[in-house]
């Protein structure tokens, strides 16, 4: 019986997916739970297994095409399950497997050796069918095989050259097509700028307290929890606490409705070898310092090891990003939609500052809050980031 293969929904807020690769071809046999195709949603690739055993009879959505969740992407000619109950009063008879051996697709190519000037081998015809090479095109492909016949390599080379849109004309230029992650990032960034009214407020932080506290707790923390204690953990804890007090900065705007969230899903930007990812620590508002620290470190590792699933990058309510890795002190970040604010924290550098009318040397860091002035005004945004700075300067101690 014919069964639809649909684009699955891998996360609550995911609305579409892009087919990256079909693992099966038309006519291929599919076993239950075998991977049929691979999709990408927001830079996360997932392999999709088949619910049914049977044969792939139609492919409706090609590779690199994006469709909505639930859209039909292909059709399987499924074998009736031996254990399935009667359907409509009739016992569904299982289709007996003909060949016991997994056979390679013997595709009926609609492109045939008919009347053309050359004969084409089965694999060449199969490839032509698969890649949409017409008979006219096939006739023109130069053959490097025996007596000028077209080999598999010849048609493969033709297909490859056909899809190359750009030929690099200048030797002092490299042309590199965008990979999926870059493409996704490009679209997201521009869309964000077109959506939010980006406004920025900067606060200066005397980090002496934070530096001292971290130094005090560092070794025991590492021994006890098997991971490093970082400034990010401190900043994150302060941010999460203050977001509970200033939920306007922990919101989103849908149409003309503000969604003010009482929970905090904290996104922490991570630079990976595949690009910028923002995994989310869900339920940060309920976590203790240690839990939050572990969650942040954990999800950063997951991101670096390409182990994130789509749900890991969705549902964030506020984002933090460290722009100090390369020594920068201030950055003007782009808001991570559909949030309304993002906090960048820069490198901590020793500076001469004035304390009680005297010049002293202190470790200084700058916080930059970018916020959406459609609903977060300067007073709200500015005072929020200043409060973060104030708490970091004056906190008594963290319960670690």
């Amino acid at each position, binding site marked *: 019986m014919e069964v639809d293969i649909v684009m699955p929904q891998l996360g609550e807020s995911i609305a579409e997916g892009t087919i990256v690769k079909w693992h099966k071809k038309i006519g291929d046999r599919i076993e239950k739970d075998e991977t049929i195709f691979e999709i990408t949603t927001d830079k996360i690739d997932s392999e999709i297994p088949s619910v049914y055993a049977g044969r792939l009879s139609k492919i409706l959505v090609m590779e690199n095409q994006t469709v909505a969740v639930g859209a039909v992407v292909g059709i399987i000619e499924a074998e009736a399950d031996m254990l399935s109950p009667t359907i409509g009063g009739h016992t569904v008879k299982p289709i007996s497997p003909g*060949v016991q*051996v*997994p*056979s*390679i*697709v*013997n*595709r009926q*190519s609609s492109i045939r050796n008919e009347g053309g000037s050359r004969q084409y*081998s*089965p*694999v*060449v*015809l*199969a490839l032509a069918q698969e890649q949409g090479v017409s008979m006219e095109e096939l006739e023109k492909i130069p053959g490097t*095989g*025996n007596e000028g*016949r077209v*080999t*598999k390599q010849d048609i493969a080379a033709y297909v490859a050259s056909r899809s190359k849109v750009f030929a690099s004309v200048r030797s002092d230029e490299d042309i590199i097509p965008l990979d999926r992650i870059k493409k996704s990032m490009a679209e997201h960034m521009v869309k964000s700028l077109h959506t939010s009214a980006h406004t920025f407020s900067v606060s200066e932080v005397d980090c002496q307290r934070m530096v001292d506290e971290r130094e005090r707790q560092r070794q025991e923390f590492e021994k006890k929890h098997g991971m490093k204690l970082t400034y990010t953990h401190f900043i994150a804890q302060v941010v999460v606490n203050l977001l509970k007090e200033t939920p306007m900065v922990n919101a989103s705007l849908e149409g003309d409705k503000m969604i003010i969230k009482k929970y905090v899903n904290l996104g922490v930007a991570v630079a990976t070898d595949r690009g910028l990812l923002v995994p989310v620590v869900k339920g940060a508002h309920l976590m203790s310092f240690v839990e939050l620290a572990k969650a942040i470190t954990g999800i950063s590792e997951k991101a670096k090891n390409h182990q994130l699933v789509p749900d890991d990058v969705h549902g964030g309510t506020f984002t933090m990003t460290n722009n100090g890795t390369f020594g920068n002190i201030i950055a003007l970040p782009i808001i991570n939609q559909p949030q309304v604010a993002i906090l960048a924290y820069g490198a901590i550098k020793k500076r001469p500052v004035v304390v009680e009318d005297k010049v002293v040397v202190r470790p200084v860091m700058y916080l930059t809050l970018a916020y959406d002035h459609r609903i977060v005004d300067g007073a709200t945004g500015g005072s929020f980031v200043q409060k973060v700075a104030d708490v970091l300067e004056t906190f008594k101690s963290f319960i670690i």
Partner: protein
Amino acid sequence: MATLTYLEAISLGLKEEIKRDQNVFCLGEDIGVFGGAFKVTKGFQEEFGYWKCFDTPLSDSAIVGASIGAALMGMRPVVEIQFADFITCAFTQIVNNAAKIHYRWGAKVPMTVRCPSGGGVGGGPFHSQNPEAWFLRVPGLKVVCPSTPYDCKGLIKAAIRDDNPVIFFEHKYLYRRIKGEVPADDYVIPIGKADVKREGTDVSVVTYGSTVHSSLEAAERLAQEGVSVEVVDLRSIHPYDKEAVLATVKKTNKVCVVHEDTLTGGVGAEVAAFIAEHAFSSLDAPVRRVAALDTPIPYVPALEEAVLPSTEKIYQVLKELAAY
């Protein structure tokens, strides 16, 4: 791990099985006192006693018949046919009795028949044949043809432990000419599983037995010329690893089946037909075969060389395939 010859690996496997299972015993012509025509069972009678390795009269039909009887009584005989060519004397015992008893009576015949096969040693027509194709077509039998010492030990154990009658063709040319690493542990190679002896991308060779080595030599020569050859050693002829065959065809789209046995109706014919039937749309060239000419194996060395497949002949065909 030790470096053993092909022959030593078989001996070792046999010894370990005799020690492991008291039902295992060897019988055959000259294998007891003399230690076997090729010395595979040298020292066995001294080590294990008369009834573990004894001499039989010169009648393969009787030897195999007696083995079938012993097997029916619960023993696991390993019978040696002194030269594989003489297996024809035991043909009805193997094909009509051993192969069909389980089907007819539901009784098991866990017999192993060891046969030194193959040419290249100047043995002439009656001492050089490769009879595996005669048995490929008999349901109820299993047939294995190892090519390396490692495969020998693993497969002789598999053959002895299998409850079906298994014919074990040991290539006499390889006996002392091939050495290899053989682990000391009790490993078994499953019957029906091939082994990719060399990975490649341009052309595939499906082969077994002595031609594994000449195919590898041809592959090496072609590698110098920029052609990447994959060599798949079937190891088992009956059943043979159909999945491995399909996988290699799908990978390179060009395949040649090579065996030392004569061309017409050999294992290559079956494999080629299977490929044409099940992997047609993956073929970028006709399926080729390299095998012995359809003649008796000559005694005169120059003629024998002309009849048997050689590295040079394999090389030429693979080269043609690659350029097709």
